[in-house]
């Protein structure tokens, strides 16, 4: 267990925007009712693609959520990230002037950044239409949302943007955890933001990794993933710092691990060695044993290879018997694969599961697969005591991250809504 001298890290604020809900209460409601946000994409033309849907955020005008001065030159990715950040700061009670920005850091995960803005710019140029405004290119770099949030909320400490594709924002939470634990600061803004883009849509389609229907993780007939977009911001805070501010926490971050399969750019190693090692490493760093894990939020993309390999990895870490007893769910079945934001959205889902002592379902699950024979909580959430939970993120390039969250003591915990 954690030594009393070790600085503990809690999640003291959350902000989420996804296709299933544009704030934490709505996301939470959808999460535990098994609502699906995957539908037709109208952000760009999907004609000619075998799959034409994704988890697109439904809000018709994200710009209307902000004062125009706040969002000059903002990309869609920036808008999603800023929306989640605003909710998270308010949720954590971090009003301007109430915290020391120099004692706060920001580490976000990113996928494609403002790629959607660049695509629109390129299409305008190629079409020969009136010259597009180049200022929309300012939001293209992945770090723009990090800089925007840091600037808006006067975060003066460490600043970093992690871009390891689908594990980016999970890794950002790990890095944030390290920064607090090492004493570098008391507050870290972590998470990630991702917007749908033509390139990612075309890219996953070209690799034949997309399901023509809404994705069906762990189902025997699964055909691939559904893309998604959204953002989740988790405010990490040193336990005593949050307690002194009178802020109740969602959950405690107990540890994390990252590793690399060093095998293939787009496929996991079939022996599941990398995935199992990262889960084992995270448990070891968290100082807990496998029998203390009561829930796993799976990477669960819905591709045939990922789900089989992740299942095998879980069995390797927990053993057949224990693995069969742990509820496992894929949040991606509801919001799609939000790439750079997925790790943070799933971390948010995991801490909400701990808070509510309930596990969200894997939706669209119809036909059991003999190769995926664990408890995937099909279609309906269920109450379940959760002491500690694992959240997995596995990315292109074999970049794996596992996070371990635990329940905070009753006195410091939030009340479930």
């Amino acid at each position, binding site marked *: 267990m954690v030594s009393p001298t070790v600085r503990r890290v809690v999640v003291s604020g959350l902000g989420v925007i996804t296709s299933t809900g544009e704030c934490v209460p709505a996301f939470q409601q959808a999460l535990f009712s098994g609502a699906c946000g995957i539908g037709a994409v109208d952000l760009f033309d999907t*004609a*000619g*693609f075998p799959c034409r849907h994704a988890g697109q955020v439904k809000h018709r005008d994200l710009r209307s959520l902000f004062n125009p001065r706040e969002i000059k*030159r903002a990309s869609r990715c920036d808008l999603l990230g800023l929306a989640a950040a605003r909710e998270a700061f308010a949720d954590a009670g971090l009003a301007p002037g109430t915290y020391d920005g*120099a004692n706060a850091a920001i580490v976000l995960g*990113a996928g494609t*950044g403002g*790629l959607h803005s660049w695509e629109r*710019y*390129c299409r305008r140029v*190629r079409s020969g239409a009136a010259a597009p405004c*180049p*200022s929309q*290119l*300012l939001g*293209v*770099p*992945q*770090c723009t949302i990090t*800089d*925007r949030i*840091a*600037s808006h909320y*006067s975060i*003066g*400490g*460490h*600043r*970093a*943007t*992690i*871009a*390891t*594709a689908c594990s980016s924002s999970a*890794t950002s939470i790990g*890095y944030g955890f*390290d920064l607090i634990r*090492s004493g570098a600061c008391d507050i870290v803004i972590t998470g990630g933001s991702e917007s749908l883009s*033509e*390139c990612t849509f*075309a*890219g996953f*389609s*070209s690799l*034949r990794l997309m399901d023509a229907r809404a994705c069906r993780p762990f189902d025997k007939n699964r055909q691939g993933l559904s893309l998604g977009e959204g953002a989740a911001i988790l405010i990490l805070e040193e336990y005593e710092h949050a307690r002194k501010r009178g802020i109740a926490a969602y959950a405690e971050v107990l540890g994390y*691990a*990252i*590793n*690399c399969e*060093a*095998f*293939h*750019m*787009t496929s996991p190693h079939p022996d599941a060695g*990398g995935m199992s*090692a990262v889960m084992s490493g995270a448990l070891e760093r968290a100082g807990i044993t496998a029998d203390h894990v009561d829930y796993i939020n799976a990477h669960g993309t819905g591709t045939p290879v990922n789900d089989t390999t992740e299942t095998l990895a879980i069995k390797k870490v927990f053993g057949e018997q224990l693995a069969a007893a742990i509820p496992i769910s894929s949040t991606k079945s509801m919001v799609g694969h939000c790439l750079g934001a997925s790790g943070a959205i799933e971390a948010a889902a995991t801490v909400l599961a701990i808070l509510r002592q309930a596990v969200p379902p894997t939706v669209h699950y119809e036909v059991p697969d003999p190769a995926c024979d664990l408890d995937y909580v099909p279609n309906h959430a269920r109450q379940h005591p959760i002491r500690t939970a694992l959240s997995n993120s596995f990315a*292109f*390039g*074999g*970049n794996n991250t596992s996070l371990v969250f635990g329940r905070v003591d009753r006195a410091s915990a939030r009340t479930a809504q």
Partner: protein
Amino acid sequence: MTETLITGIGVISSLGIGREAFWEQCRCARSGIRRITGFDTGGLQSNCAGCVEGFNPAAWLPPMTYRRMSRTSQMAVTASIEAVQDARLDFATLERSRVAVIMGTAYGGSSCIGEFFDGCIDEGPQGAHPFLFPETVPNAAASHIAIYHGITGPNCTLCQHDLSAEAALHYAANLIEQGHIDIALVGGSDELSRALLTCYGALGVLNDITVDATEPPVPRLQAGLVPGEGAAVLILEKSSTARTRGAQPYGILTAAVFAGAAGAPGYYAGSHAIMLQALERAVSQAAIDRSRIDQISVSANFSGALDRREYRLLTDFLKGCPRTPAIHPLKYLMGDFGGAGAVRAAALLLSMRRQERLPGLDVEILNTQGPFLPQWQQDCGAAARVSVMTSTNVGGATACLVFTAFDT
């Protein structure tokens, strides 16, 4: 802070392919800014950049390995091979899960992104090339390095625009400090591409240099950045691990500080105050007196906003200092790119190993406009024991690293 040493260096840059060639160009202050020949520059605002010339991945990598890589990945993997050889790392005797690969890049394989999307525009979904797509993700280079060497420890890529490599160095040092790893291959890489220069041109941030094949390019001071490309990989190692295996360190990473102020996208922070704060914190963390600093590598890149801020930073920081360190804007020789911080760190460390300071420029040049007519001052006899690297980014972030000499 756990003592972290740098025990190996690999460089692919416009100043030379390989560590030794790079060092020779650095010490003689020869420019790597030249006419771009790698792709069509028709219609671009500038046809000059810090281009890597003569890089042949086939000399380092098997065809099946490099053919599916972007140029960024090729340069990064090649630099990693040189760094691993230099550090005499033998992965057969190391616990590979205790070795990390941490890279920084601003745009990764930008030529692949451009080519991939051109295919989509021209031919619709059928034009999306499945071999190109994996190279469009920024973490491709770090993943290729891990695959090439069989490194199974932490693998991470940081995209912090021009501070990407500095961010990678900070995270790698953090992983060592936290006990996650013993060794890290850490660095930065970026490539020039038509897609990238088109964007820079549209934004009006480029130094407008257009020359024919016979003319030498002359950038203008404070007239816009000169882009560049390249890769460098450093081997960062926990002191006890390095000592046990008898490594020969280049130096010690004594401090790594990041800080940030408000800065709009595409613009630097309003003043140099945060840069000064980061520099003072780093010097304090390193427990050195500023009079002991032998050389400062600045991130000046010919853009007026940055160069003027660095001028003010240095004049404030060095006020009353009895001794002026050599001021070294390496980007004046090799152009600017996201992973450039790793190349700048390599230059400092090579100079420390060779007991020879990098040539410097008078600090006043950072506050000057007009054609860059360099007057590098070489103080070859002077050793470099304390080197500082300051870096600042659009968006408001700033970083400062301190390297000190390793005494056996």
